[in-house]
């Protein structure tokens, strides 16, 4: 049985016009410039100023302005237990919140993927936590929900043997993380839902015919298909969750002690309470460098996410 081997399709290559090449290139750059320049000015200038101040001794509550301090701020940061603790806390909170929110997101998305009566309303309800002002969410959870004497949660858990727990004292970190998860699960849910609905229906039917039950289909087909969506969710979610400030400030004020102090809150305290602009700046720069390292590592892992959005034209 001879077969004429058909050629593999050649990828579409975008034809860049020759000749008016230089002009074309600048014409393409022009629309990008306003946004680019704006962002550079508004984000890089403060960053450069931060770097400048990180090498200065500058205390607001002291007269005399800024003096050159060399790297003393940096050595303070690196030897500071408070900074390390805040860093650790940030990592703990972000990792826990992102992972749990993603797991819940997948579960909710699977539930919302099937048709059932009132699905639209159910979806609306699930999205709402994302819309609630984070400051409001923090206050509502801190007060009406978790209050030891009047809170709803304690009342709901009473039949299970839980009595008047002071959540923000005994389980402060957990409480903050719960609020973070509560607010970001809808985001994960929607991204995963997009993934589920983009799965071609006929491959699922083929799996049925091939003998795969519901679990096997989910494990063998759906999860691999969802991988880029999960990565996108984790990437974007981490970017926002690592900067969590509202919940910490309004629920626990970093406490008890420093048990819920994450990096954003730590830096806030340095500026507002310690008035140490130089120290805060150095801590900020170190934070930025750490973020860049983690981000580069993460993006290499998630390079797929960018291929995901390949320019087609």
């Amino acid at each position, binding site marked *: 049985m001879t*077969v004429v081997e*058909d050629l*593999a399709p050649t990828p579409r290559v975008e034809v860049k016009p020759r000749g008016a090449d230089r002009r074309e290139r600048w014409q393409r750059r022009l629309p990008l410039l306003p946004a680019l320049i704006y962002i550079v000015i508004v984000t890089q200038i403060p960053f450069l100023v931060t770097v400048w101040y990180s090498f200065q001794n500058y205390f607001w509550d002291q007269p005399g302005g800024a003096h050159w301090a060399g790297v003393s701020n940096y050595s303070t940061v690196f030897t500071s237990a408070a900074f390390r603790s805040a860093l650790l806390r940030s990592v703990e909170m972000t990792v826990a919140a992102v992972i749990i929110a993603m797991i819940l997101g997948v579960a909710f998305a699977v539930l919302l993927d099937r048709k059932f009566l009132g699905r639209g309303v159910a979806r609306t309800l699930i999205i709402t936590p994302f819309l609630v002002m984070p400051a409001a969410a923090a206050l509502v959870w801190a007060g009406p929900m978790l209050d030891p004497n009047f809170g709803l949660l304690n009342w709901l858990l009473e039949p299970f043997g839980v009595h008047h727990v002071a959540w923000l004292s005994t389980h402060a970190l957990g409480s903050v993380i719960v609020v973070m998860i509560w607010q970001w699960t809808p985001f994960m849910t929607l991204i995963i839902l997009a993934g589920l609905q983009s799965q071609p229906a006929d*491959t699922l039917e*083929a799996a*049925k015919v091939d003998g*795969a039950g519901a679990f096997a289909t989910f494990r063998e087909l759906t999860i*691999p298909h969802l*991988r880029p969506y999960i990565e996108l969710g984790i990437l974007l979610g981490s970017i926002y969750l690592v900067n969590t400030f509202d919940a910490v400030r309004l629920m626990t004020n970093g406490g008890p002690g420093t048990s819920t102090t994450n990096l954003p809150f730590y830096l806030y305290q340095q500026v507002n309470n310690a008035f140490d602009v130089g120290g805060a700046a150095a801590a900020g720069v170190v934070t930025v460098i750490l973020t860049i390292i983690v981000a580069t590592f993460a993006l290499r892992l998630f390079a797929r996410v960018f291929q995901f959005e390949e320019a087609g034209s």
Partner: protein
Amino acid sequence: MANVKYVSASRVYAKDTPPAVNALDLDIQDGEFMVLVGPSGSGKTTALRMLAGLEPLDGGRVEIGDRDVTFVPPKDRDIAMVFQNYALYPQKTVADNMGFALKMQGVNKEERDRRVREAARLLDLDDSLLDRKPKQLSGGQRQRVAMGRAIVREPQVFLMDEPLSNLDAKLRVQTRSQIAELQHRLGITTVYVTHDQVEAMTMGHRVAVLSGGNLQQCASPRELYENPVNQFVAGFIGSPAMNLQTVPMVDGGVELANTVLPLPGPIQTAAKGAGLSELVLGIRPEHLHLANGAGELPGDVILVEELGADALLHVRLAGTDSPVVARAEGRRPPALGAHVTFSVQPDDMFAFHPVTGARLAG
């Protein structure tokens, strides 16, 4: 024994709408290549999916190997299916795609690899392709992987849903014969759906013609061609299509192209018996013979399609609006605009009831 039976099988999508498949009765023998053909909306794909277990039955039952499988889930029916768009698992390699069903059955890795390799060889799929992902393959290769996935299972029945429709013309012709050969070699009962009647005629042992959810006729290709049971089958099977014209009945026959065309006896009797004043006359293009001036049916050539071996003439017969198509010698066909005449043998004429479409015969 892997025969397939549809017994009064029906599928209705919404209450009070006409059924997508209306009480289908079909008997498919073990090892037979049965083609379900019809235009879109005819219910052929639905019928196939009912056999697969992907559509529930609203009436009747389906049997595989004399076993009632109406309520049996797809995976327990011992069938394999080739989907129209192949439905290959995008994140799995070709080898994993083909071995997936075996993996689900718990077959060990060695055995799986052996059977996958065997199927790949059967389909002329190079070993180097086994580790690629579907998106790296060409359309023809993907089609073969889809077939390989079905073959590896060694099922009782093959189901194929328009597997050639996404291939280009040349590849389609090639693959057509490969599939027919493969089926012959493996001897597995196959139910094949297509809208292309050429595929149906060349591949099937028997062909079931469907329209509007109803089975029109199920017979061998030759039988369908020479003895269509109604107007739909007559007009659907055969390319170019049979010429169909509604013509009034007159003394001695029917009137066509300002001429009286005598009808064969049996048709006359049937028509008179049904009390008809007109009927639908059917004549195949190759039965309109070019007669140099001596034919009964005059007309003007409005289009000549030269195919090399023959030519197709589109002719407007005198006194008619819609043109007829006639087959002529390819070497020197009449020119555009020429006035020609045709003769036709009475035995080559078909007649159909103008309302029901049923064949009028003895």
